[in-house]
């Protein structure tokens, strides 16, 4: 036998030798400097071949070496040849080898697995060089997989093993986080955290720029909306995509939706379905092909985006379903903006550098996640193509609040008469051909609304409190098309061909409430119904809570800001709480000391709310402030039944933005606690282990 004996090499002598195993084996030890198993001391006798035990084939073998060894007892002794039986006997007899005998001098004795275990025995007794110790450690790692601690693997998931412990701690951590995060949905007593501001902070010029850019879109403007995110960021970016889409639809602009992620396309379809569902009560529908296009999926990552950049006409030719879009667009430069929703800051940089330069006239508006904020901010500051930036769920909240205050709270649009009988309802039908008759049961879906010829103005002049001071888009590149201001849009003179059409909606109210009628119209003779109503205006400088009942123990339905106005529909016994109308079929309660009571006409009340054409403003008002966009999807192919709508209304009641944001904050707090506790335990454990090791 060679002096330069290789243990593993010898172990395979009686195996069929394949060229693969041969070449691989040679390579193994020539390339792994630290695991050469050759004895360093020349002249030592070699170990015998490993027993067959160690050479089982995979299909019959247990999964790890430690399991393999633990099963050794099951192997009948008579299967072993005489020499091995003898060896075994000798190894059992003397667990302590002579103290002066080194590892490789174990003279034909097969080391029993017990002997390889730490804590005395053979290994503890022999004098080994450092290199040999390393080899022994390695062998221990391989053979003794069940040793506690971070071994390189092989720990079998038995009771008390690290894996079982890990599973238990994982479960406890998960339950703790979920429990804390669900508390705000159970009771409002857990609302500890302040909500994000209702407007972008002054220093957030980039966020305001984005808002203004979308707010100043003109009807028939086209823009690219790229959804470059997956499920991991969907929780944050879906609501932002929803808001941006509503904002765009509300201006009458046409988004061309594109993605290099097929799931994101499915998400976009879901979001638009949600929008349609929410505006269904206003008999509105946005339709693919007319109001938006979902373009074909872009395969190939960076190369696919290059195709988009350089050959946009070809990309825009087909929709995601393979149908021809009929779009006549030569390049990205024909678009007003590119709105990019990206999961990571790097994606924004990539778009700014690789996609946008081809159409340098088209600014990029970026929306990203909270985690990507620092880098995205730096890119937004340094890359001139980026004209606006929003990030994270806090911005989503502020964005939503801005839209709410700009376009008003949910107007009293009826669900369906079958759901909410309204005995005291009066309605003033208006002479408008395209307006559905409010006394009749509205059809579940009307044909597609044609935006352009039926632009409607409900209000003439927004009040100061309801319209934020919108600054003009400050970062638009020089030579841009003149963007019309809000006032321009509101001016009927600027909208030739527009017909004045009025909408009448019926407010369903409890019998105690004064009957109300909404009526608004535009230039050719407004036909407002004059009826005084009681209104409360929020005067508290803080955000105030609107609750389900007249006590602070009741759940929060909404939050309101100073200046928000609500119609009063009742009061509690001592007058300390007002019952107010939030939306059809949904009333809330607000504490009397937080509000000031006003009396005004219906028209005056409405004038503070909307400044957009009514049909489009509905898109914003009906934003579902709470649900992630993977909510129930009853309306896959069929129009909704009244029961569906009712159920949706119920869901809207349950999930409100306040509890959701509170839950996120509480979840973050729980996560922080878990992380601190877990690391404390592990850190102390590591210190103790180290101290123990140095003491030994």
């Amino acid at each position, binding site marked *: 036998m060679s002096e330069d004996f290789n243990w*593993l090499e010898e172990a395979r002598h009686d195996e069929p030798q*394949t*060229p*693969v*195993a041969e*070449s*691989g*084996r040679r*390579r*193994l030890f020539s*390339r*792994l*400097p*630290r*695991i050469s198993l050759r004895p360093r001391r020349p002249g030592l006798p070699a170990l015998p071949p490993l027993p067959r035990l*160690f050479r*089982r*084939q*995979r299909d019959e*073998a247990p*999964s*790890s*070496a430690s399991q*393999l060894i633990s099963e050794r007892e099951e192997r009948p002794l008579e299967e072993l040849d005489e020499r091995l039986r003898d060896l075994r006997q000798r190894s059992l007899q003397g667990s302590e080898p002579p103290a002066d005998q080194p590892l490789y001098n174990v003279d034909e004795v097969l080391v029993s697995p017990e002997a390889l275990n730490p804590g005395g025995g053979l290994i503890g007794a022999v004098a080994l060089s450092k290199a040999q110790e390393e080899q022994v450690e*390695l062998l221990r*790692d*391989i*053979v003794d*997989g069940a040793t506690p601690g*971070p071994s*390189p*693997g*092989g*720990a079998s*998931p038995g009771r008390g093993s*690290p*894996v079982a412990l*890990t599973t238990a701690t*994982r479960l406890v951590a998960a339950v703790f986080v979920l429990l804390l995060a669900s508390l705000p949905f159970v009771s409002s007593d857990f609302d500890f955290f302040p909500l994000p501001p209702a407007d972008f902070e002054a220093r957030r010029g980039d966020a305001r720029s984005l808002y203004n850019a979308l707010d100043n879109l003109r009807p028939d403007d086209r823009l690219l909306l790229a959804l470059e995110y*997956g*499920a*991991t960021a969907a929780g944050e970016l879906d609501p932002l995509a929803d808001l941006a889409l509503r904002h765009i639809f509300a201006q009458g602009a046409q988004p061309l939706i594109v993605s290099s*992620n097929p*799931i994101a396309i499915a998400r976009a379809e879901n979001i638009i379905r949600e929008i349609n569902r929410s505006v269904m009560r206003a008999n509105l529908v946005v339709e693919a092909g007319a109001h938006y296009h979902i373009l074909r999926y872009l395969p*190939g*990552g*960076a*190369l696919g985006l290059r195709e988009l950049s350089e050959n946009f006409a070809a990309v825009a030719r087909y929709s995601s379903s393979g149908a021809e879009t009929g779009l006549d667009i030569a390049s990205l430069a024909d678009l007003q903006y590119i709105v990019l929703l990206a*999961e*990571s*800051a*790097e994606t924004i940089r*990539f778009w700014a550098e690789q996609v946008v330069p081809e159409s340098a006239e088209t600014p990029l508006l970026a929306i990203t996640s909270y*985690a990507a904020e620092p*880098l995205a901010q730096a890119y937004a500051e340094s890359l001139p193509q980026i004209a606006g930036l929003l990030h994270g769920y806090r911005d989503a909240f502020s964005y939503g609040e801005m839209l709410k205050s700009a376009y008003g709270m949910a107007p009293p649009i009826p669900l369906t008469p079958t759901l909410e009988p309204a005995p005291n309802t009066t309605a003033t039908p208006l002479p408008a051909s395209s307006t559905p008759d409010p006394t009749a049961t509205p059809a579940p879906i009307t044909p597609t609304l044609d935006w352009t010829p039926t632009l409607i103005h409900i209000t003439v002049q927004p009040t100061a409190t309801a319209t934020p001071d919108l600054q003009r888009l400050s970062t638009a590149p020089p030579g841009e098309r003149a963007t019309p201001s809000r006032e321009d849009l509101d001016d009927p003179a600027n909208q030739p061909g527009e017909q004045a059409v009025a909408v009448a909606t019926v407010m369903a109210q409890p019998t105690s409430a004064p009957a109300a009628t909404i009526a608004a119209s535009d230039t050719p003779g407004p036909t407002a119904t004059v009826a005084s109503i009681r209104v409360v205006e929020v005067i508290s400088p803080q955000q105030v809570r609107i609750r389900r009942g007249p006590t602070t123990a009741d759940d929060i339905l909404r939050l309101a800001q100073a200046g928000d106005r609500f119609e009063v529909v009742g009061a509690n016994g001592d007058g300390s709480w007002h019952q107010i109308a939030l939306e059809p079929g949904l009333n809330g309660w607000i504490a009397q000391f937080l509000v000031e009571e006003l009396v005004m006409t219906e028209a005056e009340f409405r004038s503070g709310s909307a400044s957009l054409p009514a049909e489009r403003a509905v898109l914003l008002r009906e934003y579902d402030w709470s649900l992630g966009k993977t909510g129930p999807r009853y309306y896959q192919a069929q129009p909704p039944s009244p029961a569906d709508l009712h159920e949706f209304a119920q869901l809207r009641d349950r999930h409100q933005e306040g509890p959701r944001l509170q839950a996120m904050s509480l979840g973050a707090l729980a996560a922080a606690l878990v992380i601190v506790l877990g690391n404390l335990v592990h850190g102390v454990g590591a210190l103790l282990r180290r101290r123990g090791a140095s003491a030994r």
Partner: protein
Amino acid sequence: MDQTTVQVFSVLFVMATVVLLYTARFFERRRRQRAQRQMAALERLPAWTSQSIESSRPLHLSLGASAVGGEDTPSALAGAEFFYHLIQSGAAGDQAPTISTSSPTSVPLAQDTARRAWEGDSLLSARWYPPGLAFAGGLSAAMAEDEAAAQILAGKLGPELALILDGADRGGSLAVSDQLEGQAVAFAMADETLIGEELYAAAGYVSDEASASRVAVVIDVWRGLLIIGLTLALLLAYAGILPWLSWQLLLAAVVAATVLGLILARRS
């Protein structure tokens, strides 16, 4: 900087790198030893490889979403090269390693890497799963079923890495990503982590093949120069000299950098 300056600078930079790639080879051949740092993260690889052999459990390697034909082509190639040497060292085991990817263009690369290094029946080696969380989900299930001895993930990996690593508790794990999110997750959850450019240099550290190790040398050289350059630029900016920086000056800087690089490569 105008476009011309950028172009000139890019070409010079590329040429300097090419020169370095060839000259590093020269030094390698002459000195027969590598000028490399220690990478502690790679020291456990031999143990994992041995474990894979001894326990008949496959090694699992993953390129993530690195795609051939995109901006992350070099990541895919570097990952494949790293895996080639790892598989070679573990070729004595009876379980073919698996290389997973979520980019279909990387499937041939994975298959080719496994075939070259393993030389056995590697039909099951290259595996594609759809991108995103589906990749993490599919992979975790398959790896649990295969009882992978260790997971080595190198490529374009995002936060989905957490799901994969969470399921990798029974074996060792090494992860490195060219994405910041993935890198952070790797640091928190993998047993061992490489950072940033170490993904591209890793192959040079696990093999003694000159062509692999000179990439590591050149990256080290450029990195050293970059640090010096950034520090100098900072000082120049403070001194108010930076506005005069023209492409001629940059040219001089690149030439100086190349010379410095050559000296550094020889000394290291």
